[in-house]
């Protein structure tokens, strides 16, 4: 499904990702851990096509198609979903309208009839309940005045509605209390499907108690330095990254 080969990328001449190889098959859940500044968020931005991020070498394909050659919205409708670490507000645009446009854009790309307002409302209400947000959040402006936890739930709601094929969750657990974490994890687990894969970026093993990964990768200085199963995350939790023997420097991106 998603195949990343020898990916090098950065921002403004600064190299951040320095050769990543990663293959994600349908139905798999991959966790990516790693110290700050190792390139975890950058990987999400590069794959989603955010402006300012330049790929200097390597390739990424989604279901055989060249992901890096597509516009941001083309990647989105092709099934790539990024759950943001810091979701931004769009005042005055209701969640409902925003999501309906987004879902219908994806349907249009798949040559399906757009949902009517009534059809969509039904789906939206369901998704809203699933992430335990009150229904009036559908009417509120996108993330407008939402708390940190509400924003993250809203991201998961969008994921549920968009039905993407690959979901890249960028530190969706950061800033969540234990109940919100559980809700978010339930939302993700409900979407696990033989045809859908997840990349879960996190600093904490805790999330992986709820969302059980098939693989765990440690990213350091723009490269995957170690891969393993869920037990690798437990090791990181216990020992930090020191056991990897890399002398990494913490830096802000």
């Amino acid at each position, binding site marked *: 499904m998603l195949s990343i080969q020898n990916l090098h990328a950065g921002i403004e001449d600064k190299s951040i990702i320095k050769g990543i190889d990663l293959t994600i098959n349908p139905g798999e859940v991959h966790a990516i851990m790693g110290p700050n500044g190792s390139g975890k968020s950058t990987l999400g931005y590069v794959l*989603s096509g*955010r*402006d300012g991020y330049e790929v200097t070498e390597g390739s990424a394909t989604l279901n055989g198609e060249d992901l890096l050659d597509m*516009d*941001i*919205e083309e990647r*989105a*409708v092709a099934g790539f*979903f*990024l759950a*943001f670490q810091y*979701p*931004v*507000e*769009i*005042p*005055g*645009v209701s969640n409902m*309208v*925003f*999501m309906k*446009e*987004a*879902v219908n*854009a*994806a349907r249009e*790309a798949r040559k399906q009839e757009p949902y009517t307002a009534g059809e969509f409302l039904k789906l939206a209400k369901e998704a809203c309940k699933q992430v335990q947000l009150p229904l009036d959040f559908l009417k509120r*402006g*996108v993330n407008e005045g939402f708390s940190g936890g509400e924003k993250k739930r809203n991201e998961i709601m*969008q994921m549920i509605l*968009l039905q993407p094929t690959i979901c890249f969750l960028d530190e969706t657990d950061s800033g969540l209390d234990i109940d919100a974490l559980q809700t978010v994890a339930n939302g993700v687990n409900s979407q696990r499907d033989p045809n859908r894969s997840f990349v879960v970026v996190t600093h904490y093993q805790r999330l992986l108690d709820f969302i059980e990964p098939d693989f765990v990768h440690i990213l350091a200085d723009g490269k995957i330095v170690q891969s393993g199963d869920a037990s690798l995350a437990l090791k990181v939790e216990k020992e930090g990254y020191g056991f990897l023997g890399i002398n990494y420097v913490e830096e802000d991106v």
Partner: protein
Amino acid sequence: MIDELDLALDRKYEAGFVTDIQSETFEPGLDESVIRRLSTMKGEPEWLLEWRLKAYRSWLEMESPDWANLDIEPVDYQSISYYSAPKSMKDRPQSLDEVDPELIRTYEKLGIPLHEQQMLAGVAVDVVFDSVSVVTTFREKLAEAGVIFCPISEAVREHPELVKKYLGSVVARNDNYFSALNSAVFTDGSFVYIPKGVTCPMELSTYFRINELNTGQFERTLIVADEGSQLSYLEGCTAPQRDDNQLHAAVVELVALDDAKIKYSTVQNWYPGDENGKGGIYNFVTKRGIAHTNARISWTQVETGSAITWKYPSCILKGDNSVGEFYSVALTRGRQQADTGTKMLHIGKNTRSTIITKGISAGRSSNAYRGLVKMGPKADNARNFTECDSLLIGDKCGAHTFPYIESRNPTAIVEHEATTSKVSDEQMFLCQQRGLDPEKAVSMIVNGFCKEVFKQLPMEFAVEAGKLLEISLEGSVG
């Protein structure tokens, strides 16, 4: 249906009202003899001629204002023809092929039917229609309620006492340079009278009156809402309208007597000119209303057209407890310039006013809000709340805010809030990551920004206005 109706009325109007002067077109130039001739041709009473002449004499002594934040090429008033009969068929474009293709593309996006496109673009067509009955029903319904809604020149003949009493009572004929010019040479416009205690049974729209195109460049509108009456009036339409006249200097006067309510909504989308701003309309409008005791006047405007917009719909809050409102969305792009806002003059006690404006600038355009809130010495406990928000798209446009506040009453409260923001890269990225193309994303963000104002518009207008913004913003990304 509207378009057919529009056409039906259009023909009725031309036939019923312009027949006697159809062959005339004045030579360019303006002096007293031109005004006399105009007045005679329209069969006006002596008092109105005198009124026009006085306005003209005031105008001669005035100078074109230059205080607005606008860059205006001087207008040569002697090169304008002050009366021109509707263009004959052979002088018009013979088909849509002869019209600016950009304009046609916009019509298509707005979903305007072909025959209405032709009408809006001024194409010579003989239109066949069969919806006269709809018009008749509309007129009958209004007549039943005692509402008068007709061209102002007809009102001069049929209801002289009302016109004489109220014409120029809100915007004096020497109020400003452009209103003086309009008073001297206005050709036509709307007249509305709602009798005491009557709620107008339907929204009155210029759609139902005439084809705007023939109203000429000096339009005059007078609306009188008698005690306890109510009406909602819609002006303009979302389709871009072409006109060969570069200068438009309209005057709109609203009179809301005790306990009356007037809601006046405008969508202005005159031709803004080509990408260099060439050929666009200068829209210099004076709009003002007077609110008597417990009356309410509400202005809502969506301004997206014209090369230059100079317009300040205002409220004189004369009566105690009267209310004035101004809601505005002004979008400029390309090389458009807008200097628009409002004046709220609080005279009576407990008067209240609300001003909410949303300015959106794209391209190389310039967009200014200019507003005056004046609290008179007798305006005890008067209140004003003003919110001016500006949104910038790109880095070559400008947004300016010029608020003026004068308070001569210690109990009056005036609040002013202003913000300027940009469509952020993060917002764009979020929208695109969710599958929306950049143009859709911008239009969604801008529509969200304008929501507070759009919700003041009548439902159908609000939907159209949203769509209009979307189309107007095309090409402003990247």
